């Protein structure tokens, strides 16, 4: 009898996702799909003004609606120790002090939460809540505001600006990107249940259960262990679930207030307002080279928007300090507070924005120099050492990635002079750019439960937001134990399981892989301990020499079946737990993942339409644990890059302090029709220093630089240099 006796045989499909069947059949539950006994429903009401103070809130009509249980406002809410006074609120660093302020910082800011027996009743009643405000002047105008805010150094200046003032080739240009919104398919949702006065259970959409747990333990002043967070299935995040948002807090307050479990699912319009976005940015780059194309220096200034109630720093210039050798470098940045909700990390945060400017500027320089942009980059890469700290890169195969990508796209067919290749009304061009991301790793824990029949369950608190983490854990456990994949189950996304960092910043696999390997070894050691009672040779057995199979353990040809091991030792479950994290290697080395992006585009000279003909992405993500899941990550990121380059844009109306539009009919991200099948290749060489599996994260690099590759290809096709994203057909026609 195995765990999978009654389950479809998904494990035999090569590289298939362990949760695939559960997802497509709907048996896997996302946060909002749980039903908790006696639950009621919350719906948030947003402010209709963008700045000011609430004078009064009128709840009478809403309270008349059948089924309404209560309505939270800043005048009616439970006591939260972490928000007890102004000082505490400051100290909490939570962001918007929801229901603990009468100030309005942005339009749509939650001012009330209606709690009712059904979602329909709560939704209807919420529409009847209205408020009076003292209205202040709101500012949501990034373009007009950023010139008034001076930038200051981020990171140490290298060399000086003066020293390259006379180089023969200099490109200087400004680049802008509009607000972009994550919009994962699953809307953010929370079910909050106080199981006792100081014990809380949450079904929640997020990218890190332990982070949620810690945040609320502090705010409610209860032990971390009293909070259980369940996020087993997460329908995408792109960074929107990396922090804890006010709506989750509001749901917990509501559950406290009405003493019942409360469920809240954000509406799609609220997804544009309450869970972050990539902030609008303005950048200026000055880059110079000598006549050989050796980079002489770079000056990068970056500004982006933030909210007035909370500062967010995206880190746009980080990538400028990382990829190339610049003996002279100055990076500056500033944030521009606006009456909009707080932005947050969005896939490839900071670097994605920075790479657009830097990689376009290098392309511009290449045309000035009349040098091939591939050659120009290869010449200037900081391939051996991290230019920021002088440490040796543990591994950096960006040069190989660039060369491989150039072959895959047939770069030799590119015309060095723009506008040369045509096909009827279409102009054809090639472009490339690179992306890099610091390969991080956090300390993570895992455990394994083994049954008498030899099946194991590998467990961790880490979430799998669609990245394939669970599948990778199974694959690694298979590689490091020898137990067949069919006999390995995975449990994750629950704070009762061994703690792990959030799934984000391309650190998930790197962090959890070490923990899984350590736990596999702990399991082997534990089994060897039992085995040694039956056979002395096991006394000195080291984990690395022990083999497990579906039926038993062996060491130096001494096989003992699980059945006999269990019987002799009177075992029920064997459990092993271990954790693993970064160590001294971080002192010695720098770590990076990278990607080389290439594309061929067609631009219609009469309609301005851009079609991506071919897109190639070569990624150095260390050892690839599961090629299908990894390629899936990269092609998804590349499609994100197409969206960023060609269509993603959340407009604001500066007159009304408002977003314009808040649905997926109007907010365009790329769909299948916009994307060719992305050709993904991996360097697939292990980074032996980073973790026991040698795999580096690759979730971000697939999007870092891809928008620049597309913009560069559009230039190659048309001779039009478009520095403002997104490059919609109107901009092509008017350039």
């Amino acid at each position: 009898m195995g765990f999978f006796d009654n389950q479809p045989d998904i494990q035999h499909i090569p590289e298939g996702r362990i949760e695939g069947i559960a997802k497509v059949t709907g048996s896997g539950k996302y946060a909002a799909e749980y039903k908790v006994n006696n639950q009621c429903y919350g719906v948030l009401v947003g402010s209709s003004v963008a700045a000011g103070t609430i004078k009064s809130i009128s709840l009478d009509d809403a309270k008349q609606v059948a089924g309404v249980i209560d309505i939270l406002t800043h005048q009616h809410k439970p006591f939260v120790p972490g928000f007890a006074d102004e000082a505490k609120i400051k100290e909490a660093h939570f962001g918007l002090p929801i229901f603990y302020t009468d100030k309005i910082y942005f339009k749509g800011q939650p001012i009330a939460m209606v709690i009712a027996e059904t979602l329909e009743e709560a939704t209807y009643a919420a529409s009847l809540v209205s408020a009076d405000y003292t209205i202040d002047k709101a500012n949501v105008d990034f373009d007009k505001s950023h010139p008034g805010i001076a930038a200051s150094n981020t990171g140490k200046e290298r060399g000086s600006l003066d020293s390259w003032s006379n180089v023969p080739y200099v490109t200087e240009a400004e680049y802008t990107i509009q607000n972009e919104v994550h919009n994962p398919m699953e809307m953010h949702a929370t079910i909050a249940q106080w199981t006792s006065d100081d014990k809380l259970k949450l079904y929640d959409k997020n990218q890190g259960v332990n982070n949620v747990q810690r945040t609320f333990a502090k705010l409610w002043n209860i032990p971390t262990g009293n909070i259980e967070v369940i996020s087993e299935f997460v329908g995408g995040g792109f960074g929107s679930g990396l922090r804890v948002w006010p709506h989750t807090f509001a749901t917990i307050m509501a559950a406290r207030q009405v003493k019942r479990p409360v469920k809240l699912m954000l509406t799609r319009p609220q997804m544009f307002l309450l869970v972050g976005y990539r902030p609008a940015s303005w950048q200026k780059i000055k880059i110079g080279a000598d006549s050989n194309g050796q980079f002489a220096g770079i000056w990068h200034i970056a500004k982006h928007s933030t909210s007035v109630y909370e500062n967010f720093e995206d880190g746009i210039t980080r990538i400028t300090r990382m990829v190339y050798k610049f003996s002279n470098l100055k990076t500056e940045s500033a944030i521009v507070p606006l009456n909009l909700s707080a932005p947050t990390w969005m896939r490839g945060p900071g670097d994605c924005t920075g790479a657009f400017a830097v990689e376009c500027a290098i392309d511009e320089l290449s045309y000035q120099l009349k040098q091939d942009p591939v050659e120009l980059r290869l010449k200037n890469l900081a391939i051996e050492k991290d230019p920021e700290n002088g440490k040796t890169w543990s591994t950096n195969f960006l040069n190989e990635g660039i060369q491989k990508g150039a072959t895959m796209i047939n770069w030799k067919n590119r015309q060095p002079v723009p506008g040369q290749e045509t096909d009827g009304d279409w102009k054809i061009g090639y472009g490339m750019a690179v992306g890099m991301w610091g390969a991080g790793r956090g300390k993570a824990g895992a455990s394994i439960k083994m049954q008498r029949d030899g099946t194991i369950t590998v467990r961790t608190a880490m979430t799998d937001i669609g990245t394939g983490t669970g599948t990778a854990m199974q694959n690694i456990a298979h590689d490091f134990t020898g137990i067949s994949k069919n006999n390995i189950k995975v449990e994750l996304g629950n704070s009762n399981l061994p703690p792990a960092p959030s799934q984000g910043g391309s650190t998930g696999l790197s962090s959890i892989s070490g923990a899984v390997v350590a736990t596999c070894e702990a399991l082997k050691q534990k089994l060897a301990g039992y085995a040694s009672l039956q056979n002395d040779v096991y006394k000195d057995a080291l984990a690395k020499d022990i083999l497990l199979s579906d039926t038993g353990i062996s060491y130096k040809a001494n096989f003992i079946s699980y059945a006999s091991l269990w019987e002799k030792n009177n075992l029920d479950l064997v459990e092993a737990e271990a954790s693993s994290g970064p160590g001294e290697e971080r002192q010695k080395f720098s770590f990076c993942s990278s990607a080389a992006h290439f594309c061929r585009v067609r631009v219609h000279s009469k309609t301005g339409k851009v079609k991506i003909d071919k897109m190639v992405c070569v990624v150095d993500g260390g050892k690839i644990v599961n090629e299908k899941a990894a390629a899936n990550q990269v092609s998804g990121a590349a499609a994100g890059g197409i969206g960023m380059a060609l269509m993603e844009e959340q407009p604001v109306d500066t007159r009304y302090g408002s977003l314009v539009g808040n649905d997926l009919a109007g907010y365009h991200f790329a769909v299948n029709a916009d994307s060719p099948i992305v050709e993904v290749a991996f360097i697939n060489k292990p980074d032996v220093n980073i973790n026991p599996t040698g795999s580096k994260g690759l979730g971000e690099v697939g999007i870092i630089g891809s928008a620049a590759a597309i913009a560069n290809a559009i230039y190659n096709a048309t001779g039009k240099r478009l520095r403002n994203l997104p490059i919609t057909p109107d901009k092509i026609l008017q350039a």
Partner: protein
Amino acid sequence: MRPFTLSKPSTISQAVSGKNEAVRYIAGGTNLLDLMKKHISEPDALLDVTTLLSDTVQSAPKGIRIGAMVRNSVAASNSDIRSGFPLVAKAILAGASPQIRNMASMGGNLLQRTRCPYFYDITMPCNKRKPGSGCGAKDGENRMSAVVGYSEHCVAVHPSDLCIALAALDASVIVTGKDQKAIAIPFKDFHRLPGSTPEKDNNLPENAIITSIDIPANAFNKNYAYLKVRDRDSYAFALVSVAAALQLDGLRIREARLASGGVAHKPWRWYEAEQFLKGKEATQATFSQAADIVIKEIKPLSNNGFKLPMLKGAIEVALQNCLTA
């Protein structure tokens, strides 16, 4: 959404007599439900017409009659429509998504409301939604808005693709009004320009129901094209669209039809350009001149000046595509 009652009239006369200001017909619901969720339409009652109205396509020598309840996806794959009126099928398939087309009815498609983002947000001014509140788009985010036929009160465009083909092919809308009489409204008179009453999208008599759409037999089924320029290649409304159809004698143009979406408050026919094309040779130069005639008519707003070159290009390409269809 505001609570409402739902009923299913069993005859057209019952439907029409049960209808008043506070009552709406509901067909596929793909537009109406969104409007209700966003509190733009707040009816007391809905009359479900999905089983009441015809869902068949009837072909006759003088033309084709498409039941109001024929789903968009069904119409697009109907063999009579595909052979006799392929422009209609092409236009439908350029719209929305497969899922929406599976639900959307032909009648409902005509009555879908503008996608102007100010119209969809009740915290914003909008004369169409709330007469007298002002037009948010006119001096605001009007990249998608009209370039012809607008007024100071409203600059919205009609979002349908299907309707552009129907306008080009001189369809008529068959409706039954309160007086229980069926009348035919020529397509060109069906939708309105905003003038000072942008709250009115069309001339459907109050409380009347659409029962079918008629398209007269024609010879525009060989040389036709529907070109939709949009920000993304599927599931996006038009920046501009062009329905073009030609009847050719060799290379000579006998008859031409030219209509556009994404330019006006109603499906817009370019009559002057059609007239110009008549009798000319179907060459690039002719098409380019026709496009020049079109763009003479248009007056872009603050943020949609691009529609001028885009329309010129799209018309040239659409006419050219007629030759290879």
